């Protein structure tokens, strides 16, 4: 009899509760490990991860060493430029009698055109029109940029009309081709816009015929061509009373050169579609 009682008592003493799996006071184990065991395993992982971080840093450094400062290694994914608009919203909706509504668009245009101010453009060169401005022989030297003065956009420059035509219901939209290093479009590129579905509306292009001069190409990259500015084309939508309160879908394309503008998958390659609705 005594032996069975002893066994019961011994069992109670040795029984482990679920709490012991967190902290076991008898063995000093926390979550199943003693303090020194924790210290060893954490030390191991510290050293291990430090080594891995070092190896990763080394391989990254080796890779970055192989990169050129001015030109990316591969450009096969950007053979043709996209077309983008300013103000950079694809849905432009405002009421021409409410300044607050069109103020954001006007502000965006204004801040975008700051770098095109005459004061900034004085630093750039007056280039020969109709020709690429090649600077390949000037290696390791800062490349020079061609001038594009704000004035080239005349009515849409924001100089004469600070509201860019938004207040009178004839808004200006700026269009620009994406920058691509080394791109030299052939032919005579120009931008043309058209209303997608309904009757056409009158538009005015600045500079004349919406042309993009070849002298602004090629682009030599951010580092070498610091002062570069992209050529812009402004289109002023001459909306009439019938065109107000209607949502117009307008598509602008770059034509007249070898730049692609009809890619099936990329709808922004050489073209851009945006919607505009002016409420009166």
């Amino acid at each position: 009899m005594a032996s069975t009682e002893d066994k019961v008592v011994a069992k109670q003493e040795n029984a482990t509760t679920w709490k012991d799996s967190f902290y076991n006071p008898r063995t000093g184990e926390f979550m199943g490990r003693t303090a020194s065991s924790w210290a060893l395993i954490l030390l191991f992982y510290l050293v291990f991860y430090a080594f891995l971080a070092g190896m990763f840093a080394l391989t990254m450094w080796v890779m970055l060493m192989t990169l050129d400062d001015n030109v990316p290694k591969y450009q096969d994914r950007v053979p043709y430029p996209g077309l983008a608009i300013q103000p950079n919203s694809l849905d432009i909706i405002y009421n021409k009698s409410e300044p607050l509504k069109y103020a954001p668009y006007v502000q965006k245009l204004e801040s975008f055109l700051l770098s095109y101010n005459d004061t900034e453009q004085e630093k750039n060169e007056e280039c020969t029109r109709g020709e690429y401005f090649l600077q390949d022989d000037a290696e390791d030297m800062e490349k020079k940029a061609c001038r594009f003065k704000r004035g080239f956009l005349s009515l849409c420059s924001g100089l004469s009309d600070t509201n860019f035509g938004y207040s009178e219901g004839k808004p200006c939209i700026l269009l620009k081709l994406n920058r691509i290093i080394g791109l030299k479009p052939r032919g005579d590129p120009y931008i043309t816009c058209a209303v997608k579905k309904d009757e056409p509306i009158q538009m005015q292009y600045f500079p004349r015929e919406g042309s993009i001069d070849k002298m602004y190409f090629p682009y030599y990259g951010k580092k070498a061509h610091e002062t570069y500015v992209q050529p812009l084309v402004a289109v002023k939508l001459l909306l009439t009373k019938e065109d107000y309160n209607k949502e117009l879908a307008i598509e602008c394309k770059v034509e007249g050169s070898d730049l692609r503008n009809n890619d099936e998958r990329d709808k922004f390659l050489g073209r851009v579609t945006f919607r505009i609705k002016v409420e009166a």
Partner: protein
Amino acid sequence: MARKNCLVKNLEAVETLGSTSTICSDKTGTLTQNRMTVAHMWFDNTIHEADTTEDQSGSSFDKSSATWVSLARIAALCNRAVFKAAQDTLPILKRGVAGDASESALLKCIELSCGSVKAMREKNKKVAEIPFNSTNKYQLSIHETEEGNENSYLLVMKGAPERILDRSSHIMVQGKEQPMDEEMKEAFQNAYQELGGLGERVLGFCHVFLPEDKYPKGFAFDTDEVNFETDNLCFVGLMSMIDPPRAAVPDAVGKCRSAGIKVIMVTGDHPITAKAIAKGVGIISEGNETVEDIAARLNIPVSQVNPRDAKACVIHGTDLKDLSQDQMDDILRNHTEIVFARTSPQQKLIIVEGCQRLGAIVAVTGDGVNDSPALKKADIGVAMGISGSDVSKQAADMILLDDNFASIVTGVEEGRLIFDNLKKSIAYTLTSNIPEITPFLFFILFNIPLPLGTITILCIDLGTDMVPAISLAYEAAESDIMKRQPRNPLRDKLVNERLISIAYGQIGMIQALGGFFAYFVVLAENGFRPYDLVGIRLNWDDRSNNDLEDSYGQQWTYEQRKIVEFTCHTAFFVSIVVVQWADVIICKTRRNSVFQQGMRNKILIFGLFEETALAALLSYCPGMDVALRMYPLKPSWWFCAFPYSFLIFVYDEIRKLILRRNPGGWVERETYY
């Protein structure tokens, strides 16, 4: 398994077999060949040796004694074995016999020494018989005879020697019947001990001529009610047979021992025979003694021997009946080599339960109908394929098609191998989880463009990783598989913290770094340097942003940069394939070096080529860009993950080297899964 003569009835049994820690084996037919040959005879107070050579070249014994004639007659008549038909041209020892092993041995022996048994049986027709049963341990038959007293019946009986002796009041010496006295009984015991001590199965033979007055011709002998005398018979002699152990058994028992498996013999046979066979096959190893052996050696009574000194013990079935559960547990715990002799089938069940109480995983072999409870109770029941009854085969989980004990060892090895390979396969598959998850985590935490997309994750889990993971199931056993202790089913889990630590914490992390390196390389070489990627996520994923600037000042449309992103996914995917090459090679072994194990797993090699070919196909096949949005990679991008793959291989080889050199050390405790 079937090719190795092990028919598995349910597959989980193989895994259980791998964790077996005790095997309770039957003796006759499992450990031995069950091909009895008569080796010795005892009659006229002398042991005679029989000729056991195949071609009768040995010396024959003296057959002149009349006792021999009676003995031969009993052996021939009290026997249900017959030669199979149409074998007259074959030498006697090679003929096929229909009947059990002992009776076949007797038949062949008598045929060899006395001539046609068939003729003998025809002269003495059988009128009644009581077949052998395991409770009585004898069989008898009654025959018509013309010899001696004309037209009386001859009752011949054979069976366990002590039972035959109990029923004998007389003994035949030189053909004459004499009353049994103490001297004769002692001579009998000595002969029995000596023959049994040689490991032979001893059978006793006796007869009696039934007096004609009590049993006239035509007497109706009733074998159910037993209306005739079965006592006061005349003891004639003993014949002993050897049932040699199977050739492969000593080796198999040795392997079990080094694998940490205890082998217990459980037999209905005599303790001395059982002990001799146990010594012969290695169940009782050299130098281990039972308490009786120690007592005999030191010339002291058995009670004075310290039980702790004896590692081996032989337990008689009658003693087993009197043992309490605690005493049984004591015996099982304190002895490493145990033989249970003269056990009844019910006792087999008790032994199995006793072992299981001590926490062992028990495998039991059996062939008889009354072995079924023990077979069912055992964690894995093994039935004999040839000599087993249908009931035992039904109750068992595994059937030995050739009745060979060595096949159980094969089963154990296979079971352990399955468990090991399962661990390897799981470790391999789990490892790739880290390089699959970390891209999304970093995408969220650091706002970088998504490094690995859903389709590419699926390509890994359902495409390239399938064949290598399955190929690990075909991996050969590592050299130490049968030298380890059996698996403790409570503590040794399939997936343990060490496996997770290695897969997720170590190898998985290296793999993730390889993938990220490829990701950064692709983006940087296309114009997006790593520093400029952090925080770019919202703009990158904005469909309306079509003039996103890269590190060189170029501007990208949404579609253009998404193509680069998908190229990154493809490169990350290919990097995972590359690091998984190294992973599958290191997962081949848990302890051995790959150079020791070899690359003989052809399916694994096929898997390596197949996953690479699949990766190349997914990247370069025209139409993949539209279907799965996976893009062709520049050749240099395939090599981005190579240094990390190499690191995985070198790291794990060094870890396993340290593990082998420092068994029981910190590295083994923390990383040996």
